[in-house]
């Protein structure tokens, strides 16, 4: 047999494996999509006409402690804290942890919030780096500031957990913009059911939106293509990926930027783990395992309603680092909890959720890369099966575009946050173009993350943030004052 014939024979066998894999993945996605639509329909029916404001007068509502770690956030910390303090929730405490900042974070807080020293008697159930001082605000009695030695995000959260007095803890990033009534929505599953361990909310992309006083007042599509692709990605991930699991076996991830947990359960498992880059997924996995092993609460629910907004990277270099870290974190957590895989003791978590994350989320970039490289190699060697190549692209990318489109429909039907024609057209544009270049880039970054995990890399990398500023309205651009950016920014 000649080389061409051997190559032909190999590709012919392997292409069916690739196609079968994508058929399996798309079937899973279809099931998730149907589940997500059913969950959204039920959710909309439950919240229609709901009088959430009545909870504001309830004395039975559980206390929520908002835990916000901060490191070198001097530029934005005052606005962030003011936004947290104006959340609509009747029984709220805010615990801001200054994790050994080297800038003027503590000075800014002292200047703006009239702090006084306090000496509460609390049990340090989780070991953390030394706490230097504790302060409460005279102006805002429900704000406490914990000043400690630097120990990383997990350490800061654990220190806040020790101090928290709420039955529930809401873990946020200090630069996350939370909508005013988000907590009233997030608390609902805890009020309605006792098996609920944690609730996650939707994170949306704030780039391009009008931000005033720590709130997104006018959601807008970002100007840059990279941020635009991420808007579609985030919508798909939250409104489809996470909502779909509600009805099937629960979620394995709650975003570290915005999640609500039972405090006692988090303390019972020893708080957040150090030495992992996927601490938000790791704690959910551990919580769920603990729930199953001790026949305790084990449901992790996702609520599409309450929204937090965050800034996404607009530079390919920063985005690459982020995606690399996310995939490394995913691999680390799945490896750390590998006993759960196909283990009937963990119910749906072991038999459905975990295998999905391993076989689809973790492995998909590898298979996809092989598929693409296989097509290229086949073309170079003259052994390319053209019908297979077309099918591959239709299954992998065409179907992906369809999924994005259905998610945009879901968003439009249920929330209609993007109000203008311009924004809806941009959404359609980025959904259509996402699979022509951007998706392949994310595959490459995720492969690097997987390689990083296999080589034992543990770094976080440096994330650059531009910060939120009041964005000009769209008509300023129409007046020619601003140039539209539709290409990748350097």
């Amino acid at each position: 047999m000649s080389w061409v014939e051997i190559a032909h024979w190999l590709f012919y066998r392997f292409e069916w494996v690739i196609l079968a894999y994508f058929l399996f993945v798309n079937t899973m996605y279809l099931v998730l999509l149907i589940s997500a639509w059913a969950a959204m329909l039920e959710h909309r029916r439950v919240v229609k006409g709901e009088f959430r404001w009545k909870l504001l007068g309830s004395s039975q509502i559980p206390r929520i402690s908002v835990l916000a770690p901060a490191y070198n956030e001097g530029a934005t910390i005052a606005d962030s804290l003011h936004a947290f303090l104006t959340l609509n929730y009747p029984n709220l405490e805010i615990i801001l942890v200054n994790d050994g900042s080297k800038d003027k974070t503590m000075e800014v807080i002292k200047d703006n919030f009239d702090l006084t020293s306090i000496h509460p008697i609390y049990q340090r159930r989780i070991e953390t780096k030394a706490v230097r001082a504790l302060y409460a605000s005279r102006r805002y009695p429900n704000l406490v500031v914990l000043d400690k030695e630097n120990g990383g995000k997990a350490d800061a959260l654990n220190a806040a957990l020790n101090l928290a007095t709420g039955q529930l803890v809401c873990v946020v990033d200090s630069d996350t913009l939370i909508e005013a009534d988000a907590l009233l929505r997030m608390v609902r599953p805890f009020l309605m059911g006792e098996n609920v361990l944690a609730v996650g909310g939707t994170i949306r992309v704030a780039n391009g939106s009008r931000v005033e006083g720590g709130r997104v007042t006018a959601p807008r599509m970002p100007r840059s293509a990279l941020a635009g692709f991420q808007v579609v990605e985030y919508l798909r991930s939250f409104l489809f990926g996470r909502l779909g699991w509600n009805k099937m076996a629960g979620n394995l991830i709650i975003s570290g930027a915005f999640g609500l947990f039972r405090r006692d359960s988090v303390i019972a498992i020893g708080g957040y783990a150090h030495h992992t880059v996927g601490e938000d997924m790791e704690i959910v996995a551990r919580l769920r395992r603990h729930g199953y092993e001790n026949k305790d609460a084990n449901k992790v629910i996702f609520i599409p309603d309450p929204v937090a907004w965050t800034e996404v990277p607009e530079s390919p270099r920063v985005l690459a680092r982020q995606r690399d870290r996310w995939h490394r974190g995913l691999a680390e957590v799945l490896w750390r909890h590998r006993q759960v895989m196909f283990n009937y003791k963990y119910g749906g978590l072991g038999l459905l959720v975990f295998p999905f994350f391993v076989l689809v989320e973790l492995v998909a970039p590898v298979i996809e890369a092989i598929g693409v490289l296989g097509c290229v190699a086949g073309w170079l060697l003259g052994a390319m099966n053209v019908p297979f190549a077309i099918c591959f692209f239709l299954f992998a990318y065409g179907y992906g575009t369809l999924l994005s489109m259905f998610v945009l429909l879901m968003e439009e039907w249920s929330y209609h946050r993007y109000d203008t024609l311009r924004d809806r057209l941009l959404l359609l544009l980025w959904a259509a173009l996402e699979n022509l270049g951007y998706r392949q880039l994310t595959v490459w970054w995720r492969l690097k993350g997987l390689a990083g995990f296999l080589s034992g890399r543990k770094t976080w990398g440096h994330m650059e943030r531009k910060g939120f500023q009041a964005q000009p309205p769209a008509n300023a651009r129409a007046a020619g004052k601003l140039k539209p950016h539709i290409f990748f920014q350097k």
Partner: protein
Amino acid sequence: MGISREFIVSLIRGEAWVLLASAIFLLIHGAWIRWHRRRDRRLLNKAYGELAAMLDHTKAGEREAHSNRRRDSAFFRGLPPRILIKLIVETDRAISGTQEWLSRLKRETGLVQLAEAYCSSVFWWRRLEGARLLTVMDAGQSVMPDLLQDPHPTVRAQAVEWASLHPSQKLAEKLLRLLRDGAGLYRFAVLDGLTRMGTHAAGAMVEFLSGPSEESFVLVMRVASSVAGPGFLKPALTLSQDPSAPIRAGAAALLGALGGSESVNALLALLRDSAPEVRAAAARSLGKLAQWPATPLLAENLRDRSWEVRREAGLALRAVGSPGILMLRRLLADKDHFAADMAKQVLDMPTGDRELQEQWT
């Protein structure tokens, strides 16, 4: 086995059609929503205008007022239900003197009848919508109590909310029975409803707590602590001897809310309870009552092996005042390191900004 050309073409065609249809729907839906919102805003503004004019008409003579009322009712009857509901919700609380007019409006526009019809639908979301409408309109006395037994928990929770706005002994008894019903998916709604009912629910709660003890007593005692009527003393004293530790702890909290010599005696006995949560609750209650005769016993509890008990005992000593502070100072030199450490922590708390310090203890 290869992939046929026809299969590929049909796949491409199918995906392209779905994409196109989705894109068109997205754009059309957005435009429709904008038009719909503008229309609703116009109608609502007009309704407010009519309401204001109508309120002015009531100052006119009787005959003129009567003919104006007929015209106004016709206008409001022509409004879509969602606009009417919004008008009722926003007007009811914002503008005084409109209650009579609103009651008439709800009847004459058929909104109450519509909501009551929804409550007998086979679909839970319709029943929920009806229940919510009736709650807002403060109507539905004939149908809402039945929804307390609805198979769907969200509908039941809404019925509970309605019940809390119509407090009565009978409804309070029904709510308490709901607490027993298994899953407790709407347990918060029941507890919140009982709390809002306040003293109207006191009799029913006393009767409930006087029955055979069960798990839900802990929750009811929490509500009872906020009502704290004298009728709760007898069941609280009985429950302070209950075999279940959480119930004894709940009884300790309730006794702390009630006060009086009998409560104090029971709490002093509970300071020696076998369960740490009960000892901690008793210490907390004694601190709340500022019971200085309990100082020696509280000091003993500072040597407890449970951190929670030591903490509550220490704070209770501080709350008692001078005798407690004296005791804490004595304990600084105690041989028991736990007691000495807790005494130091309590005494270290600054006396300034008392309110803040108390909040953060």
